[in-house]
């Protein structure tokens, strides 16, 4: 617009600024480092492991978990899983499908899902021998007894676990059921015919 007129501003005498090359003072670097370190400590303490479920004032998932009323059924199943993984997967397989010549399947088994759980409590305690029909198939193997290896709670736990795994939809088993079965002191392993005589609740 006024390009022809001499610009009388002081611009010509005042050049554009430049930046000198002084280095960043060491204290600032140290401060940065310290703040960064504090930041990491803060995150370690308060970020809750970057979990979706950790809200203040809790600091970790475990803390939230512990603060929750403990669901007995869930705890039982967790314990049962431990037992199962340790002792039962060898024969019944981790996927509960069993193996030809080794053990019948637990997944979808009508024995496992029968209400009350009395029969499988006895199998677990006393073992099983002789022919048995599982899911329409005939099996004739031997299962060792576990009464001397596990407590009532543990057996109830593992039975509760298998009853809720692999699509099985039966409820947990009370340790008292296992205790009652143990108290009957059945000599030797069970057989299918004997078990079938026990009424299902």
């Amino acid at each position, binding site marked *: *617009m*006024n*390009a022809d*007129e*001499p*610009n*009388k*501003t002081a*611009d*010509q005498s*005042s*050049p*554009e*600024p*430049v*930046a*000198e*090359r*002084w*280095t*960043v*003072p060491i204290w*600032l670097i140290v*401060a*940065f480092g310290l*703040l*960064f370190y*504090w*930041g990491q400590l*803060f*995150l370690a303490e*308060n*970020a*809750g*492991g*970057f*979990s*979706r*479920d*950790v*809200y*203040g004032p*809790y*600091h970790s998932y475990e803390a939230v978990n512990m603060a929750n009323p403990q669901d007995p059924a869930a705890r039982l199943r967790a314990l049962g899983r431990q037992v199962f993984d340790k002792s039962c997967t060898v024969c019944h397989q981790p996927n509960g499908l069993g193996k030809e010549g080794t053990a019948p399947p637990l997944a979808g088994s009508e024995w496992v899902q029968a209400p009350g759980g009395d029969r499988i409590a006895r199998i677990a305690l006393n073992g099983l021998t002789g022919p048995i029909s599982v899911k329409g198939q005939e099996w004739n193997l031997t299962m060792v007894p576990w009464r001397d290896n596990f407590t009532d709670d543990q057996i109830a736990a593992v039975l509760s676990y298998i009853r809720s795994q692999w699509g099985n939809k039966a409820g947990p088993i009370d340790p008292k059921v296992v205790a009652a079965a143990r108290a009957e002191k059945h000599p030797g392993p069970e057989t299918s015919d004997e078990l079938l005589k026990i009424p299902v609740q």
Partner: protein
Amino acid sequence: MSAIASRTPTISRNLPQAQQAGAGASCPVGMLALFAGAVVWLFIASLLGLLNSLKFHAPGFLAGEAYLSYGRVHAAQNAAFLYGFGVPAALGLGLWLLCRLGRAVLAGPAMVFIGAILWNIAVALGAAAILCGGSTGFDSFEMPAWCAPLLFLAYLFIGVCALLTFHQRQEGRLYPSQWFVVGSLFWFPWIFSTAVLVLLCVPARGVLQASIAWWYAHNLDTVFLGFAGLASAFYFIPKLLSRSLHSHYQAALAFWTLALFGSWGGMPDGAPLPSWIISLAVVGTVLTAVPILAVATNFYQTVRQDLGALDADPTLRFTYVGLIFWVIAGAQQIVGVLPSVSSITDFTWFGVAQKELFHYGFFALTVFGALYYIVPRLLGLENSAWHPRLLKLHFYLTFLGVLISYLSLLVAGVGQGILLANAANSFPDVMRRTMMPLRVSTVGDLFVVAGTVLFLLNFAGVLVQSCRQCCMARKERP
């Protein structure tokens, strides 16, 4: 539009006429439109703020109709300040600085002009829509969804011109101001498009909307407006003192750490979000202490030997006061985010005070300072074009207004927080007891409005002078 001819290497730093006024030599209307619009919107925003402030004295004031109820006016005020004043002022400043520091003529001034007009139309429509009930419900992002395409288009026009100007720079070396300008130019579309997408187009599920709205608002303030204001400070303070900036490397540290850590934040400590998000926000905000320290010491070393000269020039005065307010606002933000403090100060006037200081104390003052320098040069006038009395009054009114408003809100906020921390104090009781400082803040708002009016008058005076000069020049030609 006509592009720059060749990239001739500049031998001296003193440029021929056309390139000095250069920024607007061919056509200053683009940048002038941005600046003029910005200042008018600042006036409107501060007026709306005053109106809302008055409602605390008389809640029934202008409450008869929905259009002027507190909530709508609050939303409109935010929109007017951030999108009417903040973004255009930042863009105008950025364009001018890119021209100056790059020794280039503005590329596509007509595009800039069209962009400015389009942007102002979009904001005007948006603000009107907000008063009619069209607010989105998100703080700092109130403008209705249909404004977004208009804003995008306008920004595209202006942004492309800015990038072209930057690309056509003659000066190979980049000065810190240019980093900040380019940073702000890119930051806005990225955060704005995220907000539009995630909040309006395909709304995120549940609380994510709130967290992303907070992230956006924080980035808009701390990074976008922060970059724009700092760009101006980095340019004018060394330039007008005829000194060089103390440290290039410190400026670089400040730039990158502000970009990195300044963009993490904005979540209130008590928000319904998993604690990792809150913790990251806290850490990011606390780490902004690094850029604050870097900038403060850099400038202190730059001006140390010339402290007396800081008050000599109006631009310098506005800019250094603005910078001090930036440091204070930043420090307050850091203190306010620490869990032990935020449990008291969150959701009180404390946060409002910090925002006010940042917006008016830092950004508005810095922009005023820059405008006092830029506008005469765009119009081919001298600094003496400004009316000195109006200028002085403007400074004192705005400075005092900001100070009064900030301090009273700070006191109100801390008082409210401490009282509320005790559950025995009923909420209405606490509000009654914090009324007094709130009433004082209205005085501050009044001063700011008055100061802005004086600036507008001064600005109009300069425009009139420029027109007169132009007419006289035309008359003198045969």
